[in-house]
């Protein structure tokens, strides 16, 4: 069953007087429950692709369907709902809210999604424990190391149990051991809950966890070797 369908997707940016074509007729099809990694040189459009799939940016042209929803047809409010219910973002720089503790950051993602505060706290605690931070729930982001912050960001995205997780260098700040542990959690969730992962990374070690690896070059995706 197809979860993501991208067809002939174009996206360009204006840089001063110059137009930079990032995506030039990109095609992609992701099956539900698939874990796919996109690799490519810096500036090749990997993050742009994630942003387009998450509905925080819009393409110039092309087809973009996620979980049956044609994103170009959704308004701002519907896109918001779409992100809330179906997307889990893991940012390269975590983007944690500094005024909320680790557990509250995870709970934030569950607002309007999980009924009841107790349930929400329970699930947040569970995912925080999964990433190995059960004892750090009461800490504010600035009291955590880079790696710990990254794990909170991962917990926040996964706790939502979304249909699609969009991750930008999710293990960039983790040591090899921690990286393996996080990837195993993701794999487990992929298998148990049928969550789909699209991961952007330069880290070749992650390939072993992937169902597929794609290479983004010159604005087009192709199967990686």
């Amino acid at each position: 069953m197809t979860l993501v369908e991208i067809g002939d997707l174009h996206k360009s940016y204006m840089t001063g007087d110059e137009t930079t074509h990032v995506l030039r007729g990109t095609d992609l099809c992701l099956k539900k429950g698939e874990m796919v990694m996109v690799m490519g040189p810096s500036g090749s459009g990997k993050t742009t692709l994630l942003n387009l799939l998450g509905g925080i940016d819009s393409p110039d042209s092309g087809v973009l369907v996620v979980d049956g929803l044609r994103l170009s047809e959704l308004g701002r409010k519907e896109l918001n709902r779409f992100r809330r219910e179906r997307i889990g973002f893991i940012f390269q720089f975590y983007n944690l809210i500094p005024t909320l503790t680790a557990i509250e950051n995870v709970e934030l993602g569950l607002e309007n999604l999980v009924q009841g505060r107790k349930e929400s706290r329970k699930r947040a605690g569970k995912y925080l424990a999964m990433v190995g931070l059960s004892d750090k729930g009461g800490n504010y982001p600035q009291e955590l190391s880079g790696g710990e912050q990254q794990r909170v960001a991962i917990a926040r995205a996964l706790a939502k149990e979304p249909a699609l997780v969009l991750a930008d260098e999710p293990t960039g700040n983790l040591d090899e051991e921690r990286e393996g542990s996080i990837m195993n959690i993701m794999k487990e969730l992929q298998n148990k809950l049928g969550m789909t992962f699209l991961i952007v990374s330069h880290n070749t070690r992650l390939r072993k966890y992937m169902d597929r690896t794609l290479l983004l070059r010159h604005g087009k995706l192709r199967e990686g070797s």
Partner: protein
Amino acid sequence: MKPITKSVVRKLLKMKWRMMAISLVVSLAMAMFVTGLYSAVIFDHSMETFIEETNFPDVFIRLSEPVDQSIARDALENTSNIRSYSLRLKLDSIFHHGGEEYPAVIIGTEDPKREDISKLLLKDGALFSREGEGVVVSGMEDIGAKEGERSRFTTLGVEVNVTVTGTVQTAEYIFASPIEDAMLPLPGNFVVLFMDLGELQESTGLGINDIIVKVDKDKREGVVDSLGTLSVSEVVYQEDHPSVVFMEMGAGKMRNMFPLFSVIFMVVGVISIFMTFYRVVMNDSRYIGVLMALGYSRFKIALAYLNFGVVLATVGSLVGLLLGFLFTMGIMSYTITMIGDIRVAYPVAPIPFVLGLIFSYGSVLVSVGIPIIVITRKTVRQALDHKPKTRILTVGTAFSGIKKTRLMGLRNTFRNPARTALTVFVIGMSVGIAGSWIVVADSAWGYMQEQVDQDTWDLRVDLSRPIPRENVTGRFEMEETEYVIPFSYMAGQIIGGGNSENVNIVASDGILETRDFELESGSLDLSRSVITNKLATELGISVGDRITIRVGPKEMNTTVGGVVYDILMQAVYVDGRTASPLTNESNATGAYIKLHDKKYTETVAEELEDEEGVSKVTIQDDIIRSMDETFGSAMGLLYFFFVICLVIAMVIAASAIIISTMERDLEFATLETLGIPKGQVIGSMLIEIGILGIISALLGVPFAYLFGKLFAVVMEDILYYFPVFFAFSAMLMTFFFGFLFVLASSIFPIRYTSKLDIERTIRERTAN
């Protein structure tokens, strides 16, 4: 442009809205500064021009009894140094129109075309040229005193009918006030008619009782002394004339009040600028360190940042200059409509504007300069290692159960306690300034009411010539009267403490019955003298000091027995015996009357007006009504300032809040990526701004009282004393409207976050 300057400019241009908000605060502060100084110049200049144009008299002399004009002329002709003079018959009267009666004064003058003394400036129609004609002072057209009307006046039981040939302006009556002795111009319908002297004399059988003189300042006393044979009851020098006093009061108010406000606003502006720049420069610390490492001198780096301060000051100052000019125009037109008909002269006066520019540039550059100096004093290593501190204040676990977006709002309020404290302080001060207008208005109004309530009399009768006291009592005692207290009223000068002031002298044995005097110091000892507090302050005298009171050529010496509060009169109260050197002890010029019941007021007043020898009847309730009207218009202005100050508070709040919102744009973008509904994000911001608003508005309450006190001190110096009290309603208003306006400022950050480009924000902020 050098790369370093370009870089700073680009960085600061990103904060253009914040900068514009700050510029606006600077502009408003400067506008107030300029408005105060320039309005004062205009007041002074307009009055000077008017006095010059109309050849305003240097001395006004009133006789207690009319005399044949040849006697007065002889006395004046034998006096040297007089440049010009005019003999007039000035009578209190009543103007009848449309079944109504209005207080009026008729001035019989020899030649209406005279230009050498008290020139009548023709506004409409023509000056009178024959019998049965007259001109009225403009401004009373609404009640029928206008060109072309056949008007009926009555004075001393005589009917005077004239055709009004035109309306005029005169510096003697720049505001028409039925209560001539009042320190404040109390408005009301009051008609001033100028007509032929001979005709008025013929109708009334009187001579002249009013002399105006143009003479050098140092020769004035000599002129007054030369009139020793005449019964002088009032002598008023030019600088003490109500028109001049009022214009000076107006100028004083402008000169003191507005710059005071501007200083407070500039403090607010300076703190806002300082907060912003401190943040910008501290955040740029590493970048500044890099520049230093590349070999840029500290001076060059400082200059690049300082350039922006110059731009900020320039924009703020230019807008401030324009606003200042516009405010001045607005205030002058409003004030002029309050005081009457005087031509406003806008002089070329660069000094207020130059001072405003210095004030504005100085304040902005200092507040920009300090953080730059702080950071450029660091070593390259220190600058490179510097990390902006982000301290989150934990609000405990009590709130952790609430929605996380609400928790965010709550914690965001205190995430940087020092900055929050400063922001709250600045907004609180602005709300306080606004509230102080309410405090001042309430206090001044309340005190004035209190003062009026101290008078126990219902009617005051003024006689056209003095008569024995026992006759006064006998003549005016009726079934309806509770008391009739005769008095002698004079106007002259009081000399004490090395200074001299114009003063009204009320001599009466029963004066203490007519008013519940509020004693400031000493005792109500009329065998010495009781003076009003403003007089004591102006002269610099107190209980026990010696004073001299002069009325024309006569004078008396006494000591101050007591000082009383009185906002209406600048007066000295003495008993009949003490005043005997000035007047015939047994004579009275009028009486205070109290009725058993106020309902008889109108009837008794009418009866008294018809009495022979009665020149004027004043009803206490008319004074109260007049004061109500005065304060009604003044209140409008005060409430206008209240709203203006609240708008400024809103701008300051918006500027402070938008700063913190912009700094947190990545957080708002993240909330969007998490799919947090817009309503919740707005709710979070409203919580934050609401808390800020509540604390600021609460802080604004004591500030309002403090600034109210400060303004009251300034007002005492230029207007009159009033005690400051803080009514609960004023507190509530300050708090409620302060909170409302601060909350209203949330529209700006809400609009900002609504238009936030998520993708770009995340890309740019994480790229940094």
